[in-house]
């Protein structure tokens, strides 16, 4: 293992190099661009033996990746924001075709107004697209997810595409020290991709077909079960990862001081670090604060979330998203989990960080204060609205 000082994008590219995709097709967009540049460099200097395809759009990027996956090889693409939205048709196609493609998405605001900075509205708008969705917190986790994502997606019981989300700029462009496994180590962890779901000259197949009302629902049900099956495969992957690399991950959620917490912030991605620091400070003042970071939005950890917050007095769902006319999508998902798991806890929504707006420590302190006091159901951080 070697240590290097890398940005989230660079760390992810290192992870992809170690995963050895046979085909890479991607189109540049800030703040993802560094990933495609790095991978191109790796192909050039032969540290990565891959076909790098200069597609002319994101729709083609994912369509090409599906072609490669249908040909039976490991495929990678990466995008962000407008690019993700541009390829939406292919997202559903890839999951329906059970193509275990891995895609990195640099979480970025969506136009209009144009904005290149980070929020999570791009990927959260695609919760129903049939992709596993993981949200990384730091550069090391990004690299590790690059490796684990293929392990999980390609498991034949899962066979589901995998989107790894990195907060735009805050994670994609921030440098940290990262452990990079050797190729040998990576190869022991991640086997070569083998599948029957491929074109085969000896036993020709018709793939990506139509299925009418009498069969369609069976395919959709199986797709759902494939995604559900990923839960145990995520555990298996993390166990094997820990044995190989000595780094531990905690499955669908990452709970911090939640066991005895009265007040918990539930959130995604890189903001969790600041939430934990703030929680530590509050604990010194005698306030039992905790943080629950959702690592996977799909499959959704309903039970795990309900279990972690059931003794709390109140929770705040802090998210960089809004479903217009309703509330944040994470909030809706969390509330639904609480209701179905019959956990009764006060829950509040804090919508912040849109278009890359900074979320400061005092903002987080404010959230903890507000949920102790009781506040509006849905709060737009930084905007005071009369009730």
């Amino acid at each position, binding site marked *: 293992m070697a240590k290097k000082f890398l940005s989230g994008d660079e760390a992810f590219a290192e992870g992809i190099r170690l995963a050895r995709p046979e085909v890479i097709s991607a189109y540049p967009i800030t703040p993802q661009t560094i990933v495609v540049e790095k991978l191109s460099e790796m192909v050039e200097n032969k540290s990565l033996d891959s076909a790098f*395809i200069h597609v002319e759009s994101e*729709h083609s990027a994912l369509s090409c990746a599906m072609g490669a996956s249908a040909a*039976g090889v490991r495929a990678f693409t990466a995008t962000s924001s407008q690019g993700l939205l541009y390829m939406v048709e292919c997202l559903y196609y890839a999951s329906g075709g059970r193509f275990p493609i891995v895609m990195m998405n640099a979480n970025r605001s969506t136009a209009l107004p144009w904005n290149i900075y980070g929020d999570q509205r791009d990927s959260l708008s695609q919760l129903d697209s049939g992709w596993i969705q993981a949200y990384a917190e730091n550069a090391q986790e990004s690299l590790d997810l690059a490796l684990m994502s293929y392990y999980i997606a390609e498991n034949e019981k899962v066979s589901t595409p995998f989107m790894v989300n990195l907060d735009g700029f805050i994670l994609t462009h921030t440098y940290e020290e990262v452990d990079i496994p050797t190729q040998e180590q990576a190869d022991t962890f991640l086997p070569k991709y083998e599948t029957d779901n491929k074109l085969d*000259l000896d036993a*020709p*197949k018709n793939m990506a077909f139509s299925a009418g009302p009498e*069969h369609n629902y069976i395919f959709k049900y199986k797709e759902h079960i494939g995604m559900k099956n990923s839960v145990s495969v995520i555990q298996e992957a993390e166990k094997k990862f820990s044995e190989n690399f000595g780094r531990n991950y905690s499955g669908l959620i990452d709970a911090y001081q939640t066991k005895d917490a009265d007040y918990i912030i539930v959130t995604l991605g890189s903001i969790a670090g600041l939430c934990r620091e703030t929680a530590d400070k509050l604990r010194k003042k005698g306030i039992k604060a905790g943080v629950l970071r959702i690592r996977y939005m799909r499959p959704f950890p309903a039970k795990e979330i309900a279990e972690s917050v059931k003794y709390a007095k109140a929770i705040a769902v802090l998210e960089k998203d809004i479903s217009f006319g309703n509330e944040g999508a994470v909030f809706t998902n969390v509330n639904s989990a609480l209701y179905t798991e019959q956990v009764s806890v006060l829950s509040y929504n804090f919508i912040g960080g849109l278009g890359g707006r900074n979320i400061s420590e005092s903002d987080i302190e404010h959230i903890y204060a507000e949920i102790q006091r009781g506040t509006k159901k849905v709060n737009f951080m930084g905007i005071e609205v009369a009730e």
Partner: protein
Amino acid sequence: MAITAKTLCKDEFFYGHKACAGCGGSLAVRNALKVLGKNAVAVLPAGCMSAVGFNFPQLCFANNAIISTFAGTASMLTGIEAGLRRRGITDFTAVGFAGDGGTADIGIQALSGAIDRNDNMIYICYDNEAYMNTGIQKSGLTPFGAKTTTTPAGENIRGNIRPKKNMFEIVAAHDIPYAATATVGYMTDFLNKVEKASKIKGTKYIHVIAPCPTGWGIPVSDTVEIAKEIVDCGLWYLAEYEKGVYHITYQPKELTSVSDYIRKQGRFRHLTDADIEMIINSRNQKWEKIRKEWA
């Protein structure tokens, strides 16, 4: 050896499908696959050919075949070609069969990208001159004057007011290794072009006229005749583009009557003699250019 009706492979690769009687598109796909053989890996976007051929559990291709997104014929071919190559497989032909809409409209970007990269594939556009699968709407390859459900012929407008996009020359302008035009009416010409394309490395494009009795308003028994006549009357031409040079592969001694061709088809029923005169004029201009530059 040149392909003739006698030498054409007897095996079938596209059968049991639900295309209408007399469908020109299914004829093009069926026979092209006979030329390319069992190792053809076919990509078909949304459109009539995928709609009639891939209804689970009635799957109609004996070779490997896959439906792509409507816009994604070429990009999916690129991925398949790269993927199979990475698996060490070399004895296959990646071939796309896309409609006129899937080619000249929604799929033109992906096609342009593939040609730009010179990805190794044959892209066959079966041109029935409208979006047939959705019920005969105008595409970029619908000819001037044709009535479709989105270009109705009424008091004010007599069908489609724009000429066909010139896909053959658009593709050639990319400096593609090989491009050709064809028609299912002159089947051996088409199939020999497919055969020729299969021997060339890089991107190949073949644009084949494939009449649709349903959309054109012709008897189902007339597909082949009308597909000959479109060439004979000069509204379509058989040509190739290779190594930067255009040349015509069939020189009709004398162009037959445009009016006869038009008057046989329901989609043109509303056209006036003056409309047909305009069509003849533009044909003549095109042929003047062809004779001068492509001879």
